[in-house]
């Protein structure tokens, strides 16, 4: 933890007369948490926007043991600046009828998070542009706020409510609605898409998510960090390492634990392997959605090879349960290092070979080029993350901006796309596979000797930590606060899908109906990560 204290945003807030208090029970100091007054809430968001910061997350939490009023609720928001890292802001809310002004006018992406707070905590967001419920569906009673501490999830079950979701409609003649999902013809995660179409042209596509809401935040409560980490690694099954790492890092920051360098190297190797495996799977799936099945099966084969080696070396095909607070569970021996180096290289070479086939095939190129464009301005407005952002001229990458260990020692090259179509999103994936393979070789080469786990000691009650990790989909943000006895008191996780789902709605606005699956796959957002 040699990072300097980050006072950049505090100073700016001071300049525009927003009074803020530096919270001492939040760590790390290079990603501070400031308490502001509620009436400054929207103003602070406006200033953040003016300074070119992007919105990372917006969430609610009940007060911890350090806070003055134990029954109060707090609203948090986190911003990130490409050069000045993350800053968290929080504001206390009234215990009775909590209210908060909306910041959706400054950040489009805030709206769904505000709806989430409204659903789950009963925090009334004033002047919210879209007051409909989001994750809490119609069958929930309106007065039930499942993320509040006083909500009792045990039987007897709540009475089921009824109602309809108010979809965007068109009164025009000739416009018809196509409802798709949540149960699909293929085996994929559940989500509902409502199309308004004229002929085969999409006028509007609306997402309805929340079908896989599991109550992750509540499930984490009163768990130890070790158990919490197991939950975190299951938030979205395809980014288990990244989610586990984000959560572990937030815990370690809170507990001020220095992770041994060897452990952070192994974490990075796992995370990059996860990135490669998922990008390989996605490229195959995008091609298969255009009926180019050859690519799918080749990519499946490569992905399977990776999964088998993961099973052999780490005991799990998807690398679950490999991280623990303070380090990693499995050390890499000489043989494992050799196998990993050899396989990563072989797979990267094969992918390059397949890339040539993909690039030389006019029939698949004709499908992906120019389909589902997201312009640069929109990408920056929403703050699109990961490969979706990188395809549209928005390049946030926590491995560079946050430069957490071991990326402080490495140089990461981020592919910079501009066109924002399906072809560019696939191109970014190909580039990232090559880059990740190079990083893995470098990490294996430079691997330091030493222990793989530091002694985990939970912080004193009331201390919170925040971390941001670049998963394969983009930045994963995790915030955790500890309570008595080293138990997790509150936590919040923001999967990049929460933001990238918005991009998909934009991308398909000028696309024919049958090209939607291709676009959806090129975004490949997580339903589970979004719904928590």
């Amino acid at each position: 933890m040699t990072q300097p204290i980050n006072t950049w945003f505090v100073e700016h807030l001071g300049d525009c007369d927003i009074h803020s208090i530096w919270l001492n029970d939040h760590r790390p100091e290079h990603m501070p948490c400031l308490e502001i007054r509620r009436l400054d809430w929207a103003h602070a968001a406006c200033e953040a926007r003016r300074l070119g910061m992007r919105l990372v997350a917006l969430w609610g939490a009940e007060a911890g043991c350090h806070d003055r009023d134990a029954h109060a609720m707090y609203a948090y928001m986190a911003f990130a600046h490409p050069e000045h890292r993350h800053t968290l802001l929080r504001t206390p809310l009234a215990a009775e009828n909590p209210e908060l002004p909306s910041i959706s006018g400054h950040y489009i992406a805030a709206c769904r998070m505000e709806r989430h707070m409204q659903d789950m905590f009963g925090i009334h967001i004033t002047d919210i542009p879209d007051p409909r419920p989001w994750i809490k569906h119609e069958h929930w009673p309106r007065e039930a706020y499942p993320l509040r501490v006083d909500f009792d999830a045990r039987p007897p079950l709540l009475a089921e409510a009824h109602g309809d979701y108010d979809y965007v409609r068109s009164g025009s003649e000739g416009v018809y609605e196509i409802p798709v999902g949540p149960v699909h013809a293929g085996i994929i995660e559940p989500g509902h898409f409502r199309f308004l179409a004229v002929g085969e042209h999409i006028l509007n596509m609306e997402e309805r998510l929340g079908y896989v809401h599991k109550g992750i935040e509540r499930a984490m409560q009163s768990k130890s960090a070790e158990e919490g980490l197991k939950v975190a690694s299951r938030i979205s099954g395809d980014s288990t390492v990244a989610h586990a790492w984000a959560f572990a890092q937030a815990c370690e920051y809170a507990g001020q634990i220095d992770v041994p360098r060897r452990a952070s190297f192994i974490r990075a190797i796992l995370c990059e392997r996860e990135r490669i495996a998922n990008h390989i799977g996605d490229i195959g799936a995008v091609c298969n959605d255009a009926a180019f099945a050859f690519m799918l099966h080749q990519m499946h084969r490569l992905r399977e090879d990776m999964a088998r080696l993961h099973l052999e070396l780490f005991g799990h095909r998807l690398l679950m349960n490999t991280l623990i607070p303070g380090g990693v569970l499995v050390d890499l021996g000489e043989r494992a290092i050799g196998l990993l180096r050899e396989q990563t290289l072989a797979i990267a070479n094969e992918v390059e070979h397949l890339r040539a086939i993909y690039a030389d095939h006019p029939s698949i190129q004709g499908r992906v080029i120019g389909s589902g464009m997201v312009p640069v301005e929109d990408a920056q407005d929403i703050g699109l993350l990961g490969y979706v952002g990188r395809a549209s001229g928005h390049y946030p990458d926590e491995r560079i901006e946050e430069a957490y260990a071991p990326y402080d020692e490495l140089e990461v090259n981020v592919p910079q796309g501009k066109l924002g179509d399906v072809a560019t999103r696939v191109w970014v994936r190909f580039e990232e596979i090559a880059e990740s393979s190079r990083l893995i070789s470098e990490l294996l080469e430079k691997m330091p000797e030493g222990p793989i786990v530091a002694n985990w000691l939970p912080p004193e009650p009331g201390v919170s930590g925040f971390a941001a990790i670049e998963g394969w989909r983009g930045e994963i943000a995790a915030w955790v606060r500890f309570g008595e006895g080293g138990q997790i008191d509150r936590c919040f996780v923001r999967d990049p899908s929460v933001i990238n789902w918005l991009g998909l709605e934009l991308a398909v606005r000028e696309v024919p109906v049958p090209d939607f699956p291709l676009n959806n796959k090129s975004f490949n957002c997580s339903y589970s990560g979004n719904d928590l």
Partner: protein
Amino acid sequence: MNAFLIQFLQAVLLIVLAPLAAGFVATCKARLQNRRGGGVMQPWRNLRKLIAKEVVMAEHASWIFRFAPYVVFTATVMAASCVPAVLVNTPLSLTADVIALVALLALARFFLALAGMDIGTAFGGMGASREMTFSALAEPAMLMSVFVLSLSAHSTNLTTMINHALNAPLVLQPSLAFALAAMVMIAIAENGRIPIDNPTTHLELTMIHEAMILEYSGRHLALMEWAAMIKLLLFATLLIDLFLPWGMATDAGILALTLALALWVAKLFGLLLMLALAETGLAKMRLFEAPEYLSGAFVIAFLGLLTHYMLEVGA
């Protein structure tokens, strides 16, 4: 041998072999993609499984939805039984008219589209709308391509056309090349193969044929799928009849029949292998490009017609 019996056996052969042909294409594709595949018998196993399964009816289904599988299957079987596969001069040869064939297939399609719309789901309607749009372009193109051959045979009767081709001296007919190209394009589109439709897709929004039968289950689905397989074999046989008829038996002798059967199977293998190759190498085209593809087929067939008049008439 009794010609009626042969006619009957020929029809049964087409119906029974259809799932095997579909399985052969699937297996070839799997091998081309470095997979093992489900084997040639897999479509038969699927059909057996579906027939044994319970039929689940959509809540709003009317009699059309219930009857459509039988109509579609019967119309396709009727079409298949009038296409000569082995023996040219069959007792039913008078009925083997190409226009009748196209009409039978149109009847099947009509009921398929009705059934798709009957249950009132968005996908059924969408699939039906796409199918009808494409068939409005595909049917004239198919007739036009057949007419190129009819011009020299002076008939639209399949038997007459085959006999004409068998008896004609071997001369180069450029118009046939056009007709063949158009016919192959139409056959791919009519059977819902890549690049027009993807028979193995699970993506509701991209489907054409599958979208219409999405709500079917059990034996109804089996009949629909079987009909689609028969249609594929029918088109392959039609291509062989019209463009590669050499070796077909003109009399009902055992030797001639055996030879004709062997040759038919060999030609079939060749055609289906080519289909598998094309499907492996191509991605599906954009929906809005499909009308261009089909009108392209029409134009090619029309060029064939012109070529016939310019180069072949009076030559």
